[in-house]
């Protein structure tokens, strides 16, 4: 049984320390299943294209927000791309997957029309810039999630 994580941590003012425990099993759905399977097993990026709007979405999703069309046309996109924007994050957070400073970036992969959010690595943070050409570096042991991409490194 889960012990309710509530305890008094201060007397004046009286403060009750709590925590909300909610374990989720998110079903990623057929689109993300295929995306992560290709990423994990073949190290390949597949976007999904709306023929009506002429847009290749990255990351892929099941419907087009613009025309409400069901998306089914898978398109391989390159593991290389261009940094659209970036930031060097210095403050700590329990959410961060790696130690700060983290260089977050929006990367538009070659062949895709929308940007993928990820991190940059193998680069001095101060040397990252928008417009920089980058390439995906994969984790050696991949599990089928977005962190199977270790980061994007500068294309040299």
């Amino acid at each position: 049984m889960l012990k309710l994580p509530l305890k008094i941590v201060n007397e004046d003012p009286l403060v009750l320390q709590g925590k909300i425990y909610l374990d989720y099993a998110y079903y990623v759905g057929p689109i993300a299943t295929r995306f992560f399977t290709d990423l994990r097993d073949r190290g390949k990026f597949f976007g999904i294209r709306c023929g009506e709007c002429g847009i290749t979405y990255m990351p892929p999703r099941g419907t087009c927000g613009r025309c409400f069309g069901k998306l089914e046309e898978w398109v391989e996109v390159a593991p290389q791309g261009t940094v659209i924007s970036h930031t060097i994050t210095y403050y700590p957070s329990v959410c961060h997957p790696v130690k700060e400073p983290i260089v977050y970036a929006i990367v538009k992969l070659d062949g895709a029309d929308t940007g993928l959010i990820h991190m940059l690595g193998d680069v001095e943070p101060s040397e990252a810039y928008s417009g920089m050409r980058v390439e995906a570096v994969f984790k050696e042991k991949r599990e089928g999630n977005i962190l199977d991409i270790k980061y994007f490194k500068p294309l040299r």
Partner: protein
Amino acid sequence: MGKRVGIVAVYQTKYEESKPYLHIHDLAYEPIKEILKISGLKFVGDGTGIDAAIGASQDHWDGYAISSKLYQDQIGGHLRPESRVRGDGAVAVFYAAMSILSGHYDTIIVLALAKESQVDGRLVESFGFEPNYTRMLGLDFLSAAALQAQNYIDKYGISPEQAALVVVKNRRNARFNPVAQAPADIEVQDVLNSPMLSSPLRELDTKPTSEGACTLILSTEEKVKKWTSKPVWIEGVGSCYDSSFLGDRELAEPRSLTSAALQAYRMAGISDPKKEIDVFELSEYTSYQELLWAEGLGLCEKGDGGKLVQSGATEIGGEVPINPSGGLLSGVPVNVAGADRVIEAVLQLRGEAQGCQVEGAKVALAHGTMGPCGQFHQIIVLRRGY
């Protein structure tokens, strides 16, 4: 709008970094008790008082499922109608106006509140990202806003000094606002010397942690005229969402803001917002956002937000005063932010904005936003009715 909805009364608590002695229902009680006193109205369903209540809050921020239960009794929800907007208070004002226009209710009380210091806000924000592709990266609304600010700099050459001018203006304006959390007589260099959080955003470029609550009472034209000698009318409303995938959006082009604003301008009969709107109260979670929002509202050309603040146009005495109250950068809680913008707009239109009064203000625009980098925007245009 055929019929009109107006504001009967408004009330704000003082905004503070933390109110450690108050439970959420204590926080709710003050602005409700005070607005009932000011308006002389009661929670009665016979048409002579407040017919229904709408709260604005978020479960993750409050640490409680359907967290409006935390203030249900204070807001008059005991055996009476009460509903809740998940998120920004400007949307609660919008829903209240729609409920009244529908004819179902005449008079509605709106409460918005947050106790940000109770929880790690960055963690709460991280839940705002979808789990498949984004959440594991640990992004929050601050690092996302930094991606937006950098994109804005790259695209239009906005400088950190220009963004810092927004902070200087707003924190100085806050000196005249009795409820402001963090008034300060600061200089550009103070902003540029503050710690870098996520480039290009420094500590002073961002909204501080804040707690507080505010209330408004809205009613029909007939009742507003009966209950106050200083009616303020809601003349135009508009709202719009952009894509939930950050990488789908042009972060330096707030197109959902423009769409929301155009809806509100059309409804209010405004063709030139720069000339026809006297004061703007915007939800700027970062300094750069105030510049971007000004562009999105059509107050200057795209990319000219930096020049706009440099020109002094957004000062209290300028052509398009923005955030004479001090705005979010001077400390207003999440969820409260948009409702508080409406209240500051109402105070301006009533000539009650004290030291931050824009002389002769007749038309005001209030703005709320939700989601990372201004994904959703709510616009409310108000006009002085006396």
